């Protein structure tokens, strides 16, 4: 009996084998893709057609996908390869894919510094050395600085870069308030005077209109790819990259928080939270577009986006330098930053993906983005020829690249996200009267140092 069983396959053995096979198949299917083979990234060399995964976190580029596909520049960049373009990839979704070993080949998916520091993206210096399109001197210095780490280039500025500091104001509302729109405020004190005159309440004390929420949009950014607005305006660095020490507990930080909070106190913290949450569901510039906020600190994209979303508001939009404290009067502050395309260490088609980084600087790509969304690259050969008067207020940003005499520094701090979140929490406690600017600065410093230790970075 037993011999017979051994001679063939019993039903039990067959079923056992089948179940093991099933379990194995499921496990194999669920396992993350392994590291690419040595030949990975040589798809171009083998001339086999591959599918290039290209992800971006915005939704807007999805609307111009057809225009991209129709352009000869993209066809040239792809060659025989196919293009899989995913838009609206949330930052955490991208992170999960990268962590799981299944990243896109090339992506603009946020978390740039994290990917650089953790070695999730590859240096691009070899590609750049052979490129006719990409070179350091073809980009705004600040943007190029952002994509480098320890002397290696870890990304290429793309999609939405350019410069990010400007005070935009609605000339119609300014003139209605009896102010001279041709002489915009230069210092925080002057801005506060405008703010008071532009802020209106009804008889029941409800807010109808306000001058400026200094923490809206770029005004509120903490450390990250948009820099740290407060430190740019007051002129100091919050973190020393070499010594690994924080410089948050200082007089300028305290003063900055106190001054900016004064604007919020006039509006009322609850009113501010209400406005920020509702206008455009918390999106930047919503209350400006609704003409409830007369001024806003925004990047170069503001004129173009406003023109595309609210043409009637765009017509009365002007831009000027961001306010600075009295002791820095006349200082022309700018910051070059934004987004970058990165090629991932675990990508299957690295070489095939590189031409897309070059394509992102092409005339057709930049035209499509600029004309339909309002974004600009950091690529000088393009913006040197672009029309600075295309959208009202945009010419200021073009001119600011030449005139700026203080460029905010892009600082690489491994816990920048933590500081950014803490900054929002602590400044809110301060403008709700729970602490002074000095106490807020001390609290921020302590939180940063504690977190640094807790993460085992010291």
């Amino acid at each position, binding site marked *: 009996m037993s011999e017979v069983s051994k001679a063939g396959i019993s039903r039990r053995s067959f079923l056992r084998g089948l179940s093991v096979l*099933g379990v194995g198949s*499921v496990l194999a299917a669920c396992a993350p893709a392994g590291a690419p083979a040595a030949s990975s990234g040589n798809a171009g060399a083998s001339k086999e057609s591959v599918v290039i995964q290209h992800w971006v976190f915005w939704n807007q580029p999805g609307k111009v996908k057809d225009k991209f596909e129709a352009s000869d520049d993209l066809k040239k960049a792809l060659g025989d390869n196919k293009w899989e373009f995913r838009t609206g990839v949330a930052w955490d979704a991208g992170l999960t894919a990268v*962590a799981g070993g299944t990243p896109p080949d090339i992506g603009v998916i946020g978390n740039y510094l994290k990917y650089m520091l*953790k070695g999730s993206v590859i240096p691009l210096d070899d590609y750049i050395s052979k490129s006719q399109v990409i070179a350091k001197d073809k980009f705004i210095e600040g943007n190029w600085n952002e994509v480098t780490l320890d002397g290696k280039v870890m990304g290429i500025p793309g999609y939405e870069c350019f410069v990010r500091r400007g005070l935009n104001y609605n000339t119609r509302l300014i003139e209605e308030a009896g102010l001279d729109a041709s002489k915009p405020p230069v210092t925080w004190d002057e801005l506060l005077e405008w703010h008071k005159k532009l802020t209106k309440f009804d008889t029941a004390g409800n807010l109808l209109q306000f001058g400026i929420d200094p923490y809206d949009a770029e005004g509120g950014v903490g450390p990250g790819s948009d820099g740290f607005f407060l430190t740019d305006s007051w002129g100091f660095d919050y973190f020393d990259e070499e010594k690994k020490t924080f410089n948050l507990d200082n007089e300028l930080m305290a003063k900055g928080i106190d001054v900016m909070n004064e604007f919020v106190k006039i509006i009322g913290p*609850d*009113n501010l*939270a209400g406005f920020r949450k*509702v206008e455009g569901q918390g999106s930047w510039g919503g209350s400006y577009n609704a003409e409830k906020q007369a001024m806003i600190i925004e990047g170069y994209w503001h004129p173009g986006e406003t023109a595309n979303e609210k043409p009637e508001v765009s017509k009365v939009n002007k831009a000027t330098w961001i306010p600075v404290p009295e002791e820095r009067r006349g200082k022309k502050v700018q910051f070059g930053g934004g987004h970058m395309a990165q090629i991932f260490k675990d990508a299957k088609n690295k070489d095939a993906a590189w031409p897309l980084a070059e394509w992102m600087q092409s005339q057709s790509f930049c035209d499509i983005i600029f004309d339909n969304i309002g974004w600009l690259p950091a690529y000088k050969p393009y913006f040197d020829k672009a029309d600075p008067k295309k959208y009202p207020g945009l010419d200021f940003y073009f001119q600011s690249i030449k005139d700026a005499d203080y460029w905010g520094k892009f600082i690489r701090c491994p816990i920048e996200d933590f500081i950014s*979140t803490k900054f929002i929490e602590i400044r809110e406690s301060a403008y709700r009267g729970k602490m002074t600017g000095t106490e807020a600065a001390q609290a921020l410093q302590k939180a940063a140092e504690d977190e640094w230790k807790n993460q085992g970075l010291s």
Partner: protein
Amino acid sequence: MARVIVNPLRSPAERRNLLLGVIFASPWIVGFLVFTLIPLGSSLYYSFTRYDLLGDPVWIGLRNYNLLLTNDADFRVVMYNTLWWVLISSPLGVISAFLMALLLNTNILGRSIFRSVFFFPSIVPVVVTAFVWQFLLSTQYGAINGVLQGWGFPIIPFLANPAYVKPSLVLIHMWSQGSAMVIFLATLQDVPRTLYEAAEIDGANSWQRLWSVTVPMVSPVILFNLVMSLISGFQNFTLPWLMTQGGPEKATEFYAIFLYRNAFQYLLMGKASALAWFLFVIIVLFTVLVFRVSGRYTYYAGGGR
């Protein structure tokens, strides 16, 4: 008298049946192993490590737990918010579901329509619920504040003031109790009419009938809904994340939001795993406590518990 011990696997037919059963159940078993047990085990391991998702985990023993309990001011705020939420919203949610079910168990005109209307919020995606309520409660343009403003009254910062925001979320929570209400409704219809008739003959008024007949008869379902509500209360994430993202002034920074922030914003997956396991322990303790306390007040027709 000799005892006969029967081994259920002794006969080939029984063993064959067992094997077939295991094979038929294997999709679930494999799914459980791959998607539940292995991630559970992994998260337990990660909770003893420093792990940022992008690099390799580094063993640090109990440091994550120690830091949470001794050196994390945010954790204390989050625990307060979460306990507040659970202790206020869970009982109120169950009470509102029970009251709605009582109302809909009466012979009112258009009862079916009302039942559908009351159940409707629980089938609406939370995202939609969040947006609808955001526009209702909005400080500047909400329907409620619009009426107040129109009548010359000051607006109420439902979602913008730290003191109002949690009660506002509780209000929304009470509104979306359709599922619990349906369970109550089914149970109410199972309460024997004879008990009410006997109570009426004994001269019980409607309040006494409710308190002495209805509540004891549905007490197991009250317990069930309460336990489920406690568990989901500790895991409260979607609604506050969509509506307030933890603000204003961290008033709605609940446990799950804090966990998410640590995991995906700060990339502290080790700490986030420790938070998850700590939450698991808290939920188990609360559930055991509720069962212990409720044992005295819950009526089971069969006498069991």
